[in-house]
């Protein structure tokens, strides 16, 4: 194909690849992509069919966390030596632990400790909170709890606005692209540690809603058609492990809370990797079902997990 017309001194695309080999390669590449998709699809179904949850119970929240994670194989199954781990609790509100507005500090601390014990190279804890981060980190007790470990590998950090990255969400139905926090995207493992509570617009906030803490931009706009958008986010961000804090659940006045009359102590911690199954189980704590909650239904429709708890293996439930 070299015809001597290119005098720019730089090779043209056509110089490097003739048409035929380009077409061949393109064809190979796309078939491979399709093949990979075909392989991935049954994997999804497989995951859904064999979803496993584990429930830890008791007033000793540390033991409840250890039991819950132990039920699905222990932390060593999810975290390997040297990995950079992000633990993402709910630290959204300027609200003390007993109100159930944030993940319980003992739950967060225990998970961080377990990751460190499993040999994690660094455990980063953060949230993009709704109230002032300095207040939520302090009032929630989470900053003090994690820093109390006095391990330089465990860090609680505030969001740094220089660390937002825009990403396309290939499987999304509504949210074509959005900004995500770099630390969450680049971590080797993301552990999602939500608290189960009532929510004004999504009825409940559980694990999928908690992922709003790793996204940026004008998050208020997520609320327009929020159910599909939450499912879209979950189609893009796949935590290695989900630990749902239901040690106490806020039944009304959420997500901020502030009225102890609305808080019920349930003494449960649920661990799993299937966000739809975890959230469906979470709904039962509020005498609801996954099918009652819009975003859980949408996530189930996208094949992100098992909404029917009769098909989920629940250990310790």
């Amino acid at each position, binding site marked *: 194909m070299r015809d001597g017309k290119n005098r720019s001194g730089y090779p043209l695309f056509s110089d490097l690849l003739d048409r035929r080999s380009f077409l061949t390669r393109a064809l190979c590449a796309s078939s491979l992509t399709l093949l990979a998709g075909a392989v991935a699809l049954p994997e999804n179904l497989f995951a859904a069919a064999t979803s496993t949850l584990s429930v830890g119970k008791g007033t000793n929240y540390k033991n409840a966390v250890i039991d819950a994670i132990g039920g699905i194989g222990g932390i060593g199954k999810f975290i390997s030596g040297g990995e950079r781990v992000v633990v993402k609790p709910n630290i959204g509100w300027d609200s003390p632990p007993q109100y159930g507005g944030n993940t319980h500090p003992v739950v967060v601390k225990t998970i961080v400790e377990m990751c460190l014990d499993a040999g994690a190279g660094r455990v980063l804890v953060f949230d993009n909170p*709704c109230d*002032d981060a300095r207040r939520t980190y302090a009032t929630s007790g989470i900053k003090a709890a994690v820093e109390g470990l006095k391990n330089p590998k465990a860090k609680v950090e505030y969001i740094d606005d220089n660390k937002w990255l825009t990403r396309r969400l290939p499987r999304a139905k509504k949210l074509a692209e959005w900004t995500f926090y770099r630390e969450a995207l680049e971590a080797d493992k993301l552990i999602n540690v939500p608290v189960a509570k009532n929510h004004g617009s999504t009825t409940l906030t559980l694990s999928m809603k908690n992922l709003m803490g790793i996204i940026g931009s004008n998050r208020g706009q997520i*609320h327009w058609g929020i159910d599909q958008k939450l499912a879209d986010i979950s189609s893009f961000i796949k935590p290695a492990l989900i630990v749902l804090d239901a040690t106490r659940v806020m039944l009304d006045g959420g*997500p901020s809370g*502030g009225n102890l009359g609305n808080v019920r102590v349930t003494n449960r911690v649920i661990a799993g990797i299937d966000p739809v199954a975890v959230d469906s189980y979470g709904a039962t704590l509020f005498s609801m079902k996954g099918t009652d909650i*819009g975003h859980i239904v949408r996530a189930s429709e996208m094949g992100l997990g098992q909404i029917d708890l009769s098909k989920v293996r629940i250990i310790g439930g």
Partner: protein
Amino acid sequence: MAQRFQNPTPSLRWTIQLLILAIFLVLFITTTYRGGDQINYPINVFFSIDPLAALSTLAASREINAFFWPSLLLAALTLLIGRFFCGWVCPLGTILDLARPCIPAHPTRRVPSKNLKYYLLAIILTVSLFSVNPAGIFDPLSIVVRSLTVVGYPLFSITVHGVLGPLVRWDVPIASGSADALLSAMKTTVLPFHQGYFFLAGLSLAIFLGIIALEAVRPRFWCRYLCPLGALLSLIAGVSFLKRKPAALCARCDKCRQACDTDAFSTDGVFQKGECILTLDCVRQCPKKKVVYSIGRKPKRTGPVMSRRWLVGSLFSGLLMGPLLSIAPVRKLKDTLGIDALIRPPGARDEAAFLSRCIRCSECMMVCPTGGLQPDLTTGGIEGIYCPILVPRVGYCTYRCTLCGQVCPTQAIKTLTIPEKLVTVIGKAYINMDRCLPYAYGVNCAVCQEHCPTADKAIAFKEVPGEVTTDGDQLKKPVVIYDLCIGCGICEFKCPVGGTSAIVVTSMKTQL
């Protein structure tokens, strides 16, 4: 035996000036939320030694404020040794001394009378006595804190972020890591966690640069001719025990006058105690080493000689200021139906009592964690210029935060306990149904309800069976529960509707 002043080197004064300026800046930077409910070292200690703020607040509020007792100490020291505050302590004075070498001198032939500052002081105190408290507009400490809060600090912060931010974002090996570490370190020390940006930044910068630019005309132009705090100290210094030998310029020598930053001599060469800011430059410059400062046995008055006409004129214009401010319809509205955007900080006294105390130092704005407290231009009338108002679209009032009251030197904003703060109403929200998504476009949103911080939410949903969203879900229309709303404005701040929020807080807060 009179005590003699040492003959200090200029470096001694520089050291003390810079040290005090450094303390001032450190206290300024610590006047911010760093994780506790209490602010331990706010910059307001500087105001406690400010006799001008003390006197004008006393005149306007007719209340003795124990906060200001150290100002008596400054007054007493000034009575002993003169206007040392201006030459050795005042941060604005230090800034002017630092800036002067950088400004080419353009002395004009005509300058105002040095008495101008006394007339200005007379106007300020008369206005304080009969209506609002304007001292803060001209008080040098207020001017410095305000300029730093509204312009200086935001500029510094934006510059640092502008340089280091891109380095962090570009993800360059080594450079990004170090920039990230440096930025993190600065954020916990000299940079604000959350930088507020303020209205009136341009005006404040112009005033500040204007004061500095006047150095071109005469050294310490502001201190010589304008500063009302300087004027007050000068009046005290004029009757002080301070004694200078010789008491006038020597024949055929003008060195003292030339060396003097404040031209502390009358036209016929007599030393004016009130104008002297004790730089002691003349002691050093005297070719015959004749100049000696000491503390005399009894106070002796030297100057100022004020024009009676001007003084009476100042008092009258001060008196007229009250009626002049009252002819604006704003006054009427404030007294009757209120002004929508005139939302004062939580704990602020009633408007009249508030204006009699606020010295416009902008500490509340500096400390406000959301940056929602903004300097006012004319919302509350021209008498309220630089007083704080909450602009919820810029930043809301944090539910459990009581910092603005804690740092307010005059308690124009009272310090609230957290339980008091939780029930303090500063306004009420209302929903603009023409913009609110569920009402106007049939789209569920609920962001305002989600963020509403009160224990029992002041925003509920009205769900009418059969009314559905464009997606076919039950439509949830937010409604404000008037009695529960405290007007914190987080709903207005978080409302995702572009431009004007679909939920707006106004100053109306009467119980229904």
